[in-house]
């Protein structure tokens, strides 16, 4: 018997493109990032993004356990995306479900291309993404945090991976969908890129997009990811400090 019942807002966006949280289609939610929040992990980062609170930690390169999973010529990369029981309005039972198993896989595949795995033969790098509070876009927020954690762990990387979601609400293509848009919007397209090379390392989509809408979404995604990337770079330069951005308007 839930104490919290979600209700669809009367409208998700006005004719002028004002969204349920007051943002315009090309505006991003406030972001805060901090590198180095944990003492035991080899690297860690904390990301606030809208109402999301995400903790990422990296252990390794270290010995693989169980041993039979060792890869002789490169590092094994493992990732786990996990939602805390108190991260959602209704309490979630601990343990992986099908969604989190899929997200663990796509997060691993979003980050692996950025790692020089051949530098660490026989080792494992473990990436943990802990969602403490969820508010739409946890996987992209988690990739941003995990990418910082990898870098702060000193893992050799081709570049930082930055990520953002693009949504469609009626005829509007919107950046960084909020909770309402995530629940009742028409499409959702999480993306991640290595910004230096503009290589896409995560791309998923849900809901329908025409060819034009898709192109528009892809382009907007690129801009949003560049925006996030700049915040990441600053956070890496100033470990143990909270780097903040208010609502960000993309050009």
């Amino acid at each position, binding site marked *: 018997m839930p104490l919290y019942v979600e209700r669809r807002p009367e409208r998700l966006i006005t004719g002028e493109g004002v969204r349920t949280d007051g943002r315009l289609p090309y505006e991003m939610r406030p972001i805060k990032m901090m590198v180095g929040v944990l003492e035991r992990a080899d690297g860690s980062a904390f990301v606030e993004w809208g109402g999301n609170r995400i903790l990422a930690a990296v252990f390794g390169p270290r010995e693989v356990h169980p041993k039979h999973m060792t890869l002789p010529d490169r590092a094994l990369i493992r990732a786990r995306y996990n939602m805390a029981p108190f991260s959602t309005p209704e309490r979630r039972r601990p343990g992986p479900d099908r969604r989190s198993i899929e997200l663990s*896989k796509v997060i691993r595949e979003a980050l692996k291309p950025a790692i020089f795995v051949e530098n660490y033969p026989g080792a494992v790098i473990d990436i943990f993404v802990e969602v403490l509070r969820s508010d739409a876009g946890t996987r992209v927020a988690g990739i941003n945090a995990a990418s910082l954690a990898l870098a702060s762990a000193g893992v050799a990387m081709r570049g930082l991976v930055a990520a953002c979601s693009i949504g469609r609400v009626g005829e509007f293509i919107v950046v960084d969908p909020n909770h309402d848009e995530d629940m009742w919007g028409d499409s959702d397209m999480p993306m991640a890129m290595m910004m230096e090379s503009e290589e*896409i390392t995560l*791309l*998923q*989509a*849900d*809901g329908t997009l*025409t*060819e034009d809408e898709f192109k528009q979404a892809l382009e907007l995604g690129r801009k949003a990811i560049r925006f996030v990337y700049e915040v990441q770079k600053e956070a890496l330069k100033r470990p143990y400090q909270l780097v903040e951005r208010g609502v960000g308007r993309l050009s």
Partner: protein
Amino acid sequence: MMFDQEILTHNLMKEYIRDLIEKGQRLDGRGLYDYRPIEVLSGTFTKAEGESWLRLGETQVLVGVKADLGEPFPDTPDKGVFVSNVELLPVASPTFEPGPPDEGAIELARIVDRAIRSADAIDLSSLVISPGKLVYMLFLDMYVLDYDGNLEDSLTLASLIALGRTEIPEVELKENGELEVRETKRRLELRDIPINFTFVKIGNRMLLDPTKEEEGVCDASITIAINGEGKVCSIQKKHGTFKMDEILNMMSVARAKWSELAEIVRGAI
């Protein structure tokens, strides 16, 4: 594991395949954007309400749609329940092991499921018997019998055919609350045909419908679903990276191939 570049194809074979593809050729002589032969077997193989046994080259899948009755989810009282599940049977490959679905099987199920849901191919509100209380539950069980690559597309095709063939017993909820299952059946309506197109990148070439060996040597892979209106209705990049223009190119190829595959689905229903 098999969806990952971790697969070990012998190194020599790997080099040979890559060299061929650099020249625009494939081991089995296909064009880069050609599908292998698709065959839908005739016969009754299950006790499902709808089924289909499909071969795509040497990949074989068997999909069954079972109906049951149950309560709707609390947040969607006016919709039937639709559940997708993939079993990578150990008979299909020496590398598959018995046990609950691993991340590969779960991702596959979600790729098929997402395409069908995004395209609204099944009218879930037509599955309601009594709102909030009693609905049909449809279980889409996808069995992989023989694995030679591209399970994404073969399972999607077989699932669409099985759904299109599905006939479920009609039921009547009487005034006294009792339930009567009738002899008559109703056909499930397939309202759209969202096709998944799986590409792999090898060097700087994009290939459609990869074999197991091509999956084993590829640099990146992606599955894109296109519906009857030419809209993208789901994307799943798997391993590796793509450039934006590469994705736009694959999308054009997929859009152009849609009719060819939709025709196979329609023909088999």
